[in-house]
């Protein structure tokens, strides 16, 4: 890659960062510094405390369920004897993360409102139809969406950290016991990080809980409050001061994940031997069971939707014709925004790269900026959307009558997607950057390369493939984002968000066209998963 192009990408990356995460952080800090809004109390009301504790319970339950689902898959991921088996399982593991969470909630919703003679009594028996079971249902749906995070982290932690302990434990224990007793304790740091990530994502998700009927949780209230906040001069302050206890918890949890993440950044080499097993039959059986579990979890909604589609008011052809009409209208702008977010995400990651030989202020700036990107990403999406909307629609930027950035361009929308998901390529780039041997940059330095040339020659060539995969992941995640996109859709651009449209339709219950749209969204996630797994294949 030529150096001028890298300079251009870095310039674009810094601009994108300033327009997204920096705007959100700035708006929240500046607006919140003025204290709570009029009529608002600093100490949350009993109702908000109730939501706070319900959210803690829901997110904790999500973590437990996600770990329970992830552990067998992680076990199979590291013990599968053949490469294609691991790749197949990897692909199945990535798919849920790229699937719109509302799709899982909608599949659950269809099951829950099913009039079948078997399902309803079963749900009744499990207590899932009880009025207070909303958070539990939400936790289950969130776990089905988020289990790949602990699965992938556990598998990687085992490969790079727990393999030695596992092999030692294997001397006098069965493989499963050796994994649970020998390897798991060594992998504590990354596991904690995985739990923290799942907890935070479950707590800030604003789409699943409302759909499954968990109205009394923090994220649902935040979504509703974002609408009320518009009446105030400082809408971001209103949301911030309403939710500071939950924000504090998420920030603390994010900080608690740091040691684990630091441990992960030191991983290197190949833990190849762990794939070998003295009992291939047992490993294949484990793989088979895990694949079935992963297929049910990742592709279960397809089955639910396919069955539901067969018996509705509209024929399958009519449903898909209407779904494709909607995609023509709302899909194109959404794809454009997702593509912009993907590219800009990679540019931000490249912009924040540094190396140990750079001057200290530059390295500090890079580290601080990475911190801002991550901190903004764990803010609730309604707060991100509200902050960006209040900035880009402000008198200076978004008030021109005939044309302005807020009304006529997707800049605010792209910025929201970046603020939410730029952390994926940024964190990946930082982790990879720390693993690149310093000798390469030293060699480039002795050849007379300046600091950008050293990045161009010694670092970027080793990380462009994972960065491209991260860009695709950002685009995929942006396609299905609802809570922030709903607040920043430009009123006069070519269209709005497909995900917001689908999500709003899901709230009206079982409908063939919505089911067809959901099926198409899952199909898109499967395709994206396949592309990602192709890109991520190692030489």
């Amino acid at each position: 890659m030529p150096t001028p192009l890298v300079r251009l990408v870095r310039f674009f990356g810094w601009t994108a960062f300033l327009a997204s995460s920096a705007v959100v952080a700035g708006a929240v800090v500046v607006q919140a510094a003025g204290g709570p809004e009029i009529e608002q109390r600093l100490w949350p009301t009993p109702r908000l405390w109730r939501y706070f504790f319900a959210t803690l319970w829901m997110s904790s339950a999500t973590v437990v369920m996600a770990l329970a689902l992830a552990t067998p898959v992680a076990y199979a991921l590291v013990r599968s004897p053949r490469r294609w088996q691991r790749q197949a399982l990897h692909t199945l593991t990535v798919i849920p993360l790229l699937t719109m969470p509302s799709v899982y909630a909608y599949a659950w919703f269809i099951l829950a409102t099913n009039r079948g003679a078997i399902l309803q009594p079963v749900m009744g028996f499990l207590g899932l139809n009880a009025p207070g079971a909303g958070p539990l249902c939400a936790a289950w749906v969130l776990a089905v969406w988020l289990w790949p995070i602990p699965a992938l982290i556990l598998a990687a932690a085992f490969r790079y950290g727990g393999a030695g302990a596992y092999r030692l434990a294997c001397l006098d224990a069965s493989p499963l016991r050796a994994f649970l007793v020998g390897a798991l304790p060594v992998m504590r740091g990354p596991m904690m990080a995985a739990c923290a990530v799942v907890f935070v994502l479950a707590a800030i998700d604003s789409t699943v809980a409302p759909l499954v009927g968990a109205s009394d949780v923090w994220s649902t209230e935040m979504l509703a409050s974002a609408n009320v906040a518009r009446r105030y001069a400082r809408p971001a302050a209103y949301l911030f001061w309403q939710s500071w206890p939950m924000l504090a918890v998420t920030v603390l949890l994010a900080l608690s994940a740091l040691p684990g993440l630091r441990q992960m950044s030191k991983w290197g080499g190949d833990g190849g031997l762990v794939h070998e097993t003295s009992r291939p039959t047992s490993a294949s059986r484990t793989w088979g069971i895990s694949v079935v579990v992963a297929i049910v979890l990742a592709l279960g909604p397809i089955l639910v939707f396919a069955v539901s589609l067969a018996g509705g008011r509209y024929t399958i052809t009519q449903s898909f014709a209407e779904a494709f009409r909607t995609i023509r209208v709302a899909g194109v702008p959404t794809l454009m925004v997702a593509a912009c977010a993907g590219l800009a995400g990679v540019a931000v990651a490249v912009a924040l790269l540094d190396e140990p030989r750079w001057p200290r202020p530059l390295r500090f700036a890079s580290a601080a900026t990475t911190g801002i990107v991550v901190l903004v990403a764990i803010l609730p999406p309604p707060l991100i959307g509200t902050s960006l909307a209040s900035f880009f629609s402000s008198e200076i930027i978004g008030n021109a009558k005939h044309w302005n950035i807020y009304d006529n361009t997707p800049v605010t929308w792209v910025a929201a997607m970046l603020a939410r998901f730029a952390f994926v390529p940024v964190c990946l780039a930082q982790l990879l950057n720390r693993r690149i041997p310093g000798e390469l940059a030293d060699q480039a330095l002795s050849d007379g390369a300046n600091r950008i040339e050293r990045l161009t020659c010694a670092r970027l060539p080793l990380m462009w493939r994972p960065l491209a995969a991260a860009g695709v992941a950002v685009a995929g995640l942006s396609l299905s984002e609802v809570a922030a996109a709903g607040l920043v859709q430009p009123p006069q651009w070519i269209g709005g968000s497909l995900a917001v449209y689908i999500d709003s339709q899901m709230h009206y219950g079982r409908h063939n066209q919505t089911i067809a749209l959901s099926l198409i969204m899952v199909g898109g996630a499967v395709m994206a998963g396949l592309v990602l797994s192709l890109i991520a294949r190692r030489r």
Partner: protein
Amino acid sequence: MRRTQRKHRPVRLALYGANAILLVMSLLSLWPLGCAGDSDGGSAGAVVVYCSVDIGFAEPILDDFTRETGIRVHRQFDTEAGKTTGLLHKLLAERQNPRADVWWSSEIFGTMQLAADGVLDAYRPTTADDIPRQYRDRADRWTAFGLRGRVLAYDPKRTRAEDLPRRWCDLVDPKYRGRVAMADPRFGTTRGHMATLLSLWGEPAMMKFYEGLRGNGFHRSDGNSHSVLMLVRGVVDYAATDTDDVIVAQQRGDSIAMVYPDLDTPDGKGPAAGTLWIPCSVALVNGAPHGSVARKLIDYLASAKIEERLYASDSRNVPVRPGLRKKLGASAPGESDVDYAAAAAMLDRSDALVTDVLLK
């Protein structure tokens, strides 16, 4: 070496393909920037509508308007969670520099509030002469049509007729403990419904009602349709909602029926108030950037053709035009003569009571 390269060709192709798609889509997204100065979208023009009518009902109507007139309609819908209230606050926030031209609401109370706050401009639709006086603003700042009733949905297989509440105030009866779902009263038609009760009953009775509801463990749902789905799932036995949500559920094949509870005062001493029917409303935004085309859209939406179409849809809005009602054989059971203006004036106080007492 060559073999390795061949082996990884699909990977490279996938990677290049993904990046090429990202690049092309990004460049395409820049295209509107170049021509965005033409914000009227061509010779026929464009109009920005903020719409809280359910997207499934509103979108086909707006599409047909574009087809018939060539005028492009930029739409901003709201979410179920922030129904009407979200866009209402957006209009209030944008009062100094309006971005919307037309406000098409699924209810009337918020529209009246906007009119009182100076957000709406006077315009009398040319198609609205046959709309009765009570459904038009005296200063022509809004026009209303297409009624939906506030009802209580229930499952006839689970609930006996004698167990049905006859009045809204009956919901505080202990026999309904934990059995009632209602949307968040800070949003949508439920907001106007509560403000109406407040205007009819007065604050002490309303506070008692909220305390009773809270004590009875009512279930706050994410929206009216959500209340219905809680009922269908068997989580609750009664759902306070609008007629259209029940009709949509019936069309879907769910076991569901509805009653039209009266608005009577809890002590039974007030006049029998009947059932609350809430019209949709349409209005021109004060300082609308595309005022002339906005008037055309308002004429279109306030026409008898659209009112008839709304009745024919699953929303089944009952026309306010007497002639149309007769022609279609439509009726609004127990229709009350509620003073919408009095209720609209109570909205802010009602919100405060909801927050301080009901959702405490």
